[in-house]
C-alpha cells in the first residue's frame, strides 16, 4: 500500500515537473539541447571531450544570436558508458524536454538510449558510436558525425588491394560485433578489388596463447594479417608471430589506437598499420574554432570537434527548416546537406550516417603512432 501511494505521489510530482518544463519551453524560452556520455568512470576522458565540445559550440552559437531568435541551453547527461544508466539518462533528458542530444559515446550506450529518444521525440547525433547497428535498425532519429565500422573496413580493404596486391593475406576476427563486422567488411572490399584472402579464421578473445594459429599462418606463408579485434589479442598475435620468426605486417582498426597495444606487442608492433579518423584539428575549416579552444587552454583532441559539429548541424538545420521540431529536422538534415561544420562539409544518407567517411591510415613506429603520409 505504502509503495503504491508513494508511486502515485511520485507520478503526480513528475507530471507537475514536466508541466512546468513544458510551460518554460514556450516559443520565447531557450531551446534545450544536451550532450550525454561517460562524464565519470573509466572513459571519463572522452566524456570531458564531449562536454568541452558541446559547451564551446553552444557558447559560439549563442554569441552569434542563437537559433531562430532563441538561445540554446545545454544539459549534461552522465551514462558512465553503462547501458542501463544510459537509458535512465535518456529518460531524464526527455522529461526535461530536450530537443536534441549530441551523444552518447559508447555504442553500447547509444543503442539503448536511441530507443528512448525515438519514442520521446528527441533527435540523437552521436560523435563517437561506430557500431553499424546504431543507425541500421530503422529509427527515425539517429545520426552520427563519426564513421561506421564497416566504412573503416572499406578503407582498409582498398588499402590492402592497392599496397599488398599479390601478398598472402590472413583475415582474423574475434567474433565480436565490432571485430567480425570489421573483418567481413574488409574482406568484402578486398574481394571486390579482385584480391582473395589466403586464410579467414576466428580466434577466441581473452586467451593468451595464439601460437597454434600463428604456426598455421606461418605454414600458409601469410605476409599480411588483417585483424578485426581488440588491441590485447592483436598485440599478442603479432608478438607471437615475430617470436616464431614470421615476417608479417599487422593491419587493424581504431581499437589499436591505444598505448596498451605497444606495451603488449613491444618491438614486434613496429610498422603495424591501423585505420582511424584523420586529425580534425588540422582541417582548414576547424582553424578558427581550434584557436578559440586553445585560447581557453583546451586541446580540441579526440571527439571534441565531433561533438561541436553535431551541435552545429542541429543549429544550421533548425535555421533552415525554421522549426525545432525533431521529426521535421531529421528529414531536413538528411535531405538538405551538405552542412558546413568544423569538420568540413558533412552530408547524411537515409540512415543518418555521414556519406564520406574520413578514415585514414596510421602507423606504429617506436612506441608512438602517426598518420601515414
Amino acid at each position, binding site marked *: 500500500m505504502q509503495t503504491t501511494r508513494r508511486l502515485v505521489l511520485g507520478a503526480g510530482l513528475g507530471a507537475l515537473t514536466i508541466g512546468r518544463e513544458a510551460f518554460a519551453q514556450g516559443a520565447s524560452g531557450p531551446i534545450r539541447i544536451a550532450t550525454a556520455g561517460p562524464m565519470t568512470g*573509466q572513459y571519463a576522458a572522452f566524456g570531458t571531450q564531449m562536454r568541452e565540445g558541446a559547451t564551446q559550440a553552444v557558447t559560439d552559437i549563442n554569441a552569434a544570436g542563437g537559433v531562430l531568435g532563441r538561445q540554446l541551453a545545454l544539459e549534461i547527461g552522465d551514462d558512465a558508458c553503462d547501458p542501463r544508466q544510459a537509458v535512465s539518462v535518456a529518460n531524464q533528458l526527455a522529461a526535461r524536454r530536450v530537443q536534441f542530444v549530441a551523444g552518447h559515446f559508447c555504442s553500447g550506450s547509444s543503442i539503448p538510449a536511441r530507443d528512448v529518444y525515438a519514442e520521446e521525440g528527441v533527435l540523437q547525433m552521436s560523435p563517437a558510436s561506430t557500431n553499424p547497428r546504431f543507425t541500421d535498425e530503422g529509427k527515425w532519429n539517429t545520426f552520427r558525425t563519426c564513421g561506421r565500422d564497416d566504412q573503416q573496413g572499406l578503407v582498409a580493404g582498398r588499402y590492402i588491394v592497392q599496397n599488398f596486391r599479390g601478398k598472402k593475406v590472413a583475415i582474423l576476427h574475434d*567474433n565480436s560485433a565490432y571485430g567480425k563486422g570489421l573483418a567481413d567488411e574488409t574482406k568484402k572490399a578486398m574481394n571486390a578489388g579482385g584480391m582473395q584472402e589466403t586464410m579467414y*579464421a*576466428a*580466434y*577466441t578473445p*581473452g*586467451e*593468451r*596463447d595464439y*601460437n*597454434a*594459429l600463428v*604456426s*598455421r599462418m*606461418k*605454414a600458409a*606463408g601469410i605476409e599480411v594479417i588483417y585483424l578485426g579485434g581488440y588491441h*590485447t589479442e592483436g*598485440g*599478442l598475435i603479432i*608478438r607471437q608471430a615475430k*617470436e*616464431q*620468426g614470421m615476417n608479417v605486417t599487422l593491419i587493424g582498426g581504431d581499437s589499436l589506437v591505444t598505448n*596498451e597495444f605497444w*606495451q*603488449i606487442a*613491444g618491438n614486434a608492433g613496429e610498422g603495424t598499420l591501423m585505420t582511424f579518423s584523420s586529425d580534425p584539428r588540422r582541417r582548414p575549416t576547424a582553424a578558427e574554432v581550434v584557436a578559440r579552444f586553445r585560447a581557453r587552454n583546451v586541446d580540441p583532441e579526440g571527439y571534441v570537434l565531433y561533438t561541436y559539429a553535431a551541435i552545429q548541424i542541429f543549429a544550421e538545420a533548425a535555421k533552415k527548416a525554421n522549426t525545432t521540431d525533431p521529426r521535421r529536422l531529421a528529414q531536413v538534415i538528411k535531405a538538405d546537406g551538405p552542412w558546413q561544420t568544423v569538420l568540413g562539409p558533412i552530408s547524411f544518407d537515409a540512415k543518418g550516417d555521414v556519406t564520406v567517411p574520413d578514415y585514414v591510415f596510421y602507423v606504429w613506429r617506436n612506441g608512438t603512432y602517426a598518420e601515414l603520409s
Partner: protein
Amino acid sequence: MAYALQQLINGISLGMIYGLIAVGYTMVYGIIGMINFAHGDIFMIGAFVALISVVMLVSGGIMDGPAAILIVLLASMAVTALYGWTVERVAYRPLRGSFRLAPLISAIGMSIVLQNYVQVAQGARVKPIEPLLPGGVTVLHIDSFVVQFSYMQMLIIAVTLGVLAVFTWLVTRTPLGRAMRACEQDRRMASLLGIDTDRTISLTFVIGAALAAVAGTMYLLRYGVIDFYIGFLAGVKAFTAAVLGGIGSLPGAVLGGLLIGLIETFWSAYFSVQYKDVAAFSILAIVLIFMPTGLLGRAEVEKV
C-alpha cells in the same frame, strides 16, 4: 612434418602450464575430496606477484637475465604459498567437519574474493611486461618453413619437468609425502596413528599454491600480459586436465594437462581454430564415458 613439429612444441609448452596448475587441483582433491575452485585464482596471484617482482627487479634496473628469473620465481612461490596457506586456514579448515558442499561454496566465494581483491588493488586493465628471455633457436628448416623453439618454451618445459621431479620425490620419498598419502587413504586413521592431519593438509595447500605460482610465473614470462581474470580460464582448463587424467592422480594431472594442450593445438592446426575448446571438451566427455575415473584414476572404494 616441420609444421607438425612446430605445433608439437607449441602444444607441449602450453600443456605443461595446464599440467602444473592441474597438480594443485588433484592434490587437494586427493587429500580432502574437495575441488578447490580458488586454485585458478591462486595461479593468478602467482602471476601478479611475479609481475610485481619483475617490475621491481628488472625495470628497476637492479638485475637482469637468468638470475632475475630465478629470484622472481622464488619470490612468487613464497608469497603465493602464503596465500594458499591463508585460504585454507580462513575458508576451508573451519568447515572441515561440515557437510560436503560447504567448503565447495566457500571455495567459490574465495575465488571471487581473490579476483575482486586483485581487480581493486591492481586495477582492471591488462598489465604487460617486456619479454625477459627473447629469442630462440631454429630447429628445422624445410621448404621455407622454419621450426622455431624459443628459449621461453625451453624454460617452461625444463622448469616444469624439474619442479615435477622434486615434487614426485617429495610425495614418494619423504615423511611428509608419507603423511600426505596416509591422509589421502584414511584421514581419521592417520590422525589416530599420530599424524598431524591439519598440518599435512595445510602443507598440501602450500605446495599446491607454490606449483600454481610456478605456472603463473611461466605464464607471465611466456605471454607477457596478465589481468585479474586469467585465473578463470586457466583454472577451468587445468581442472579439466585433472579430471581427464583422473582426479586424485598426480601423473594423471600432468598427462591430462599435456593432452589438453596438445588437443587444443593440433585441432587449431588442422581443423578450425574457433572450435578447439569444443574439441578438447568433447574428448573429455568421451573419455569419461568409457573411463569414468579418467585416464590414470583408480576406482574409488567406498569406505565403510
